[in-house]
């Protein structure tokens, strides 16, 4: 078994109009910039995919990565917890103009809904959001005298994920705080696509330190020297450069 895919264009080729795509990362840490840009390249060449529903903690920053995906008009709806940042102008303009939908979810609920999707738990109860606008219309139940909100699982067609090391079976490790949503999104998507700094043979990652077992991963592509969103934004980068 070898889940390695040779190039970025191939690995994003199956992403179609209207799909739900989870994108890992929190700020610049763990954001799969090369995968996102490959998806933009596909759109610029073919006009697809569009009308995507994107699940990410944020709404992008500057004019690269998720912000560039939105800027290209590929995103119909965003599911996220914190659509503000140093430079969220791309999302903000579209949102205020009514050109993009937003489902705002508390961060821990977002993480748990994604995990639930991966773990086959269709719904769960959480204290988070009880009595607030974000719980409006959701079922409420009392357990041991305390009120909780029912939340539903979140699943996706595809996840775009950034890892540090992957083996050919799809076992993954991450780097520092770039772990964040990435392991959960692998679990919750039918097709988890991973860019890894290093792809190694099966057996080269100690079984004790695997963070995401290969069963949750469908495709791996090596991106040996990945770009860091934070660096790109500090350099005021725009994707694609020659706009």
């Amino acid at each position, binding site marked *: *078994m070898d889940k390695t895919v040779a190039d970025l264009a191939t690995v994003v080729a199956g992403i179609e109009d209207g799909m739900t795509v989870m994108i890992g990362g929190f700020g610049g840490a763990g954001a799969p910039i090369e995968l996102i840009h490959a998806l933009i390249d596909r759109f610029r060449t073919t006009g697809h995919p569009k009308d995507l529903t994107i699940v990410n903690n944020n709404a992008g920053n500057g004019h690269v990565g998720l912000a560039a995906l939105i800027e290209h008009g590929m995103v119909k709806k965003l599911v996220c917890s914190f659509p503000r940042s140093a430079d969220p102008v791309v999302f903000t303009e579209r949102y205020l103009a009514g050109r993009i939908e937003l489902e705002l979810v508390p961060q821990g609920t977002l993480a748990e809904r994604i*995990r639930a*999707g*991966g*773990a*086959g*738990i269709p719904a769960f109860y959480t204290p988070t959001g009880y009595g607030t606008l974000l719980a409006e219309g959701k079922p409420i139940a009392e357990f041991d005298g305390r009120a909780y909100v029912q939340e539903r699982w979140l699943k996706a067609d595809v996840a775009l994920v950034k890892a540090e090391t992957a*083996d*050919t*079976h799809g*076992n993954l490790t991450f780097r520092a705080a770039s772990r964040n949503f990435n392991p959960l999104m692998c*679990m919750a998507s039918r097709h988890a696509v991973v860019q890894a700094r290093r792809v190694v*043979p*099966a*057996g080269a*990652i100690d*079984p*004790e330190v*695997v963070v995401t*077992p*290969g*069963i*949750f991963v469908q495709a791996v592509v090596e991106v040996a020297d990945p770009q860091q969103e934070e660096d790109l934004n500090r350099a005021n980068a725009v994707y694609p450069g020659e706009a």
Partner: protein
Amino acid sequence: MTVKLSNDQIAWRAAQDITDGAYVNLGIGFPEKVAQYQPPGRQAIFHTENGILDFGESPAKGEEDWDLINAGKRAVTLKPGASFFHHADSFAMVRGGHLDVAILGAYEVAENGDLANWSTGPKGVPAVGGAMDLVHGAKRIAVITDHVTKDGRPKLVERCSLPLTGVGCVTRVYTSLAVVDIEGGRFVLKEKLPALSLEDLQAATGATLVVAGPVADLIVPEL
């Protein structure tokens, strides 16, 4: 009716349907035999509930590491690409639909796909383990079993009489006499031992066997 497949032969037949790279959970005991009969060139990845993916055969006697066991508490070894994880992650794999197939034993299988394989009734100590999770988790639930009980009663039945493990979960049954799919609440015969007449097979079965297409010969492998 003296000709029937041995347990090893049933396991061999079930193994032929497992594709290369499939993620597979084998029930404790008899189903574990399936791992031995993977066709050449195919390598399934075996999952065990207690937190290992891609484990291999038992080590030599005396070489056991009792921290490295499968759900049947049998010592195992690791293949390259193995990983360890805790029980909640392990059952996220199960319940979340990440396994391609689970192959389980059965006391009874009903034509509506119901499975009874955990309790023979109210007597004794009940024990369920991971069976109830597996039957609602893997993409495909197959059963391997003798076609009849030791005292000759059918195990393929209209409705289970024993406590259920899962409702409407089984899609294929590999028995000592036949391969039967469950489609639309009916047993559909896919393969049977060539020497066995349809009438004799039906007589050994507790519900109607539907013939809805070609019935292939069930291969009797030399093992």
